């Protein structure tokens, strides 16, 4: 990935820019190079760039003033939550202001009567659930980085998680925001009442990857925890049988709370890593959660068993909380387990129509032989979101290039079978140059014009999402070096 060269005029104005930001946030400007290095990258560490300066506002008014100043001074800005983006959404610019939202982390109101929580954008995803679980509620979207990632970042990326098929992505659980437009004006979109009084701009800004403005307050929906959750594991001797089983379950009207697919390579890797007790001889397994009231879950279990039997699979249920956790721990350790096999790893994030799974896995296996690189596959089977993990050693000449070419081939394949480039990680910088694989010129022109409707000067997170003529390197992955995941304390699934 080549960065656009920084604007020398902006670099020459650095001292004045720092002084202006200090006038707005006296106790929150980071300028020393050693301090700024903490912001060099997000969870896509293959790309690093030290920002011109970082500013950490505490109030919506400060954010508004920063953006007003940036517009006047014509300085690019990059918003950042916790820096857990897997697509480089928070990658800084050498000639840009990084705005870190971590200090705006108050929960402002919990309103059980209207089933919502109003909060500042720096509150972590998991903190929402912690705040309401005492009353039996939770916040549904659960990206794997949920102990660290913030709601502001979740909104920017429209984050998902394991339970999207049943409970939706961020966009389906977000009721309203206060949003600062480029230029500094604050608008309110949505709220505790449903629906938009006009165009649904709330839906548009969700998942806009920091290109349209910044969230300074959000109101999210909370859900009552289901009284019963049961977990089961189905194993299969052939991938098409597992695929057919997924189709049969969904076609029968069952919407599992989660349904995860793992292929043979992944099963072997996690068995060697934390021995969750998966059947060693299986070609594919499914881990399924069913939730609801007792009879509902019992009914789903009986029907799922029928479909697993019909698809020549074997079903076992985890009995008890500890056994459920163990059944899930292998799946949740898949990334870390693969990281043991080779020093480097990239994670793809395409979505495909579920019926295409056997064909896509066959093609990926063929690519794996062609590129002579290992690849294993985990799959949110309920919603078709595929996470192939490519393992390689970047110290070997040419392997990184091969891995990147392999990854881009997988995403092209996803698009070819009717799917998309990214199901939940976002485009960011990593898939930017593949956008033309999925969208025509007219499609992209339409999106560009919307960008311009909000941000006429192009100062908001420039270089992200949309391909530019100057950039021609094919990308599309999360890079992991030395088996060290960025944010190693976070599970990745």
């Amino acid at each position, binding site marked *: 990935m080549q960065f656009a060269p920084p604007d020398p005029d902006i670099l020459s104005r650095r001292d004045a820019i720092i002084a202006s930001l200090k006038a707005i946030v006296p106790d929150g400007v980071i300028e020393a190079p050693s301090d700024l290095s903490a912001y060099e990258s997000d969870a896509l560490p293959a790309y690093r760039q030290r920002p011109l300066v970082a500013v950490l506002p505490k109030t919506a008014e400060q954010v508004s003033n920063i953006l007003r100043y940036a517009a006047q001074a014509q300085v690019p800005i990059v918003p950042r939550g916790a820096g857990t983006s897997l697509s480089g959404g928070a990658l800084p610019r050498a000639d840009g202001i990084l705005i870190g939202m971590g200090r705006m982390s108050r929960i402002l109101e919990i309103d059980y009567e209207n089933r919502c929580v109003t909060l500042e954008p720096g509150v972590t995803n998991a903190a929402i659930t912690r705040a309401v679980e005492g009353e039996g509620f939770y916040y549904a979207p659960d990206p794997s980085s949920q102990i660290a990632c913030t709601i502001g970042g979740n909104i920017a*990326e429209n984050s998902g998680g394991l339970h999207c098929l049943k409970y939706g992505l961020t966009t389906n659980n977000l009721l309203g925001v206060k949003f600062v437009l480029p230029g500094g004006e604050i608008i309110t979109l949505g709220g505790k009442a449903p629906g938009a009084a006009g165009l649904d701009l709330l*839906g548009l800004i969700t998942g806009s990857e920091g290109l349209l403005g910044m969230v300074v307050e959000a109101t999210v929906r909370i859900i009552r925890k289901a009284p019963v959750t049961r977990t089961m594991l189905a194993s299969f001797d052939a991938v098409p049988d597992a695929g057919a089983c997924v189709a049969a379950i969904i076609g029968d009207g069952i919407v599992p709370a989660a349904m995860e697919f793992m292929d043979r390579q992944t099963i072997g890797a996690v068995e060697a890593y934390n021995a969750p007790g998966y059947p060693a001889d299986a070609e594919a397994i499914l881990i399924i959660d069913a939730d609801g009231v007792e009879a509902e879950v019992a009914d789903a279990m009986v029907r799922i068993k029928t479909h697993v039997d019909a698809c020549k699979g074997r079903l076992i249920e985890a009995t008890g909380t500890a056994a459920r956790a163990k059944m899930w721990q292998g799946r949740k350790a898949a990334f870390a387990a693969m990281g043991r096999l080779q020093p480097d790893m990239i994670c793809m994030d395409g979505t495909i129509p579920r019926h295409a799974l056997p064909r896509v896995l066959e093609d990926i296996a063929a690519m794996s032989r062609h590129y002579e690189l290992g690849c294993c596959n985990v799959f949110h089977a309920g919603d078709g979101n595929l996470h192939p993990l490519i393992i390689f050693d970047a110290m070997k000449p040419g392997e990184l290039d091969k891995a990147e070419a392999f990854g881009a081939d997988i995403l092209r394949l996803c698009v070819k079978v009717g799917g998309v480039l990214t199901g939940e990680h976002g485009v960011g910088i990593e898939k930017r140059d593949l956008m033309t694989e999925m969208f025509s010129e007219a499609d992209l022109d339409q999106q560009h014009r919307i960008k311009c409707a909000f941000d006429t000067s192009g100062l908001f997170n420039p270089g992200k999402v949309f391909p530019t003529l100057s950039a021609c390197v094919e990308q599309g992955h999360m890079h992991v070096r030395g088996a060290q995941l960025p944010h190693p304390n976070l599970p990745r699934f």
Partner: protein
Amino acid sequence: MTRVSSETEIRDFVRAARESRNPFEIVGGGTRRSAGRPMANEGKKLPVLDVSGVSGIVEYQPEELIVTARPGTPLAELKAALAARNQCLGFDPVDWTLFGAPGKATLGGAVSADASGPGRLRHGPARDSLLGFRAVNGFGEAFRGGAKVVKNVTGFDLPKLMCGAFGTLAVLSEVTFRVYPRPLHRTTLMLRDRNPEKGFAALRAVWKSALEPSGLAYIPAGAKFPLGDIGLGAVLVRFEAAELPLQEKIVAAKNLLGGGEELEQGDTIFTTIGEGALFNSADLDVWRLSLPPSEAARVADALGSPLWLGDWAGALLWIGAKADDAPLIRALAAEAGGHAMLLRAPAARRAELGVFPPQPRALATVTAAVKAAFDPLGLFNPGRL
């Protein structure tokens, strides 16, 4: 009136309109034409683009939970095709019979108006299940937004914008929806003789539970429904599930509510509520108030409307009102943290009041810029929103 039957024909029509700078009205089944501001071009009657011929189910894959159809497809046709595989649209689209328009409601119209019915409570409005679309913009270009898979974050989420835009951004040529299982069994519980405060509190108690109701409505005394004597008002709670889970939910709900009788005709009542049929022959303006559910009883009491009801656990009030009630309705809705949509009124009043209250300046500016990003010449349904 020009009738088209394909995306290419839509595109050619838009290009011609663009050349001649002639705005036009987009009509599908024609059942919702009286919703929104009356449209005009300097006082002249607008040409009409009839898209009802851009019709038919393109692809339906029940195992993928996805259906793609052209926007002129009659709602009834699509609902029947989905019901045959025990599936349904999540936003429970309804015909608005209160307009009394002849013709068949279409999918495109339901999406463009976000005509979400009582079932919205469970699976959300149209925007929560519209995954992708094709359309022609005001540049005369055919384009797509979103995709045909249930999970996608690639590029801006344009499908959201299409829902409830009343055809002011683009002319739809194809829409792809995520669909939901449609359980075989359903039951509606009713509590009689509850005043609005107690009634809405009962609805919220179920809404806050883990029972996943598919309908939560309140019918006040005096509203004409075939329910016998409902005293101060009726609470209606609907569940859909397989047989045994349904029994469990009914028992749990009765415990929560302190009783409840099971209604035979619950589905019919909910359909009537969603259609706005209560107002079919009433000589009143009709408003839809979107509210935080906890505010419903207070707002309803303050309005004292002769004809009204509540849906979505109180998040929606249908209000019949006289012309001069408009300022009070808008003020009460705003004060409660919601907004009031004027759905049915004589043309002059719709022209004066608009569909939605005026927006603050910054929001109005960005809204206009987004509109211009799709349709800079203002060709589509001019002035309607």
